[in-house]
């Protein structure tokens, strides 16, 4: 389930995001975090 932080809508499904990135030709920002979600 995507979550919003400020105006960023985060995906938590990397594989789906990679599929989307390939289709859109956009890159991915992958954030490994320990911050509260």
């Amino acid at each position: 389930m995507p979550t919003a932080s400020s105006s960023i809508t985060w995906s938590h499904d990397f594989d789906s995001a990679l599929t989307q990135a390939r289709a859109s030709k956009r890159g991915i920002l992958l954030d490994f975090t320990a911050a509260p979600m």
Partner: protein
Amino acid sequence: MYSDRRVARFISEQLEPVRVHVREQKDEYRRLSERYNAQWTPTILILDSEGQERHRIEGFLPVDDFLPQVALGVAKSAFQRQEYADAERRYREIVDKFSSTDAAAEALYWAGVSKYKASGDASALKATSTAFRERYQDTIWAKKASVWE
């Protein structure tokens, strides 16, 4: 970092943002941290559209340093795609907008390389070396560019 409007806007416009939490997504965190050798949080990777790492940010940065680092990753992705004119434009934008950050010197170096790759004209490298005589003299990027004198 992400609550800053400039950061949020840039990321939303340029990238697919994915967040993996060390405790709340243990299996996914283990899988992806092994794949990308991420051993600390925060680690932020800028990946190209095929999932290849193009830039790495380890540890917290203030917004004014974080944003140009993300922009560096996007510019490096353009460079890797051999879209050199676009890469040069992106690198020069970092130099212009974030001139006092560590990212600026690296961007100045790669802007010169991008221009050279696009044109084949070695004067782009000499001009970059000359530019480093006026700014960022104490950086490793100035040392790297010094060979182009």
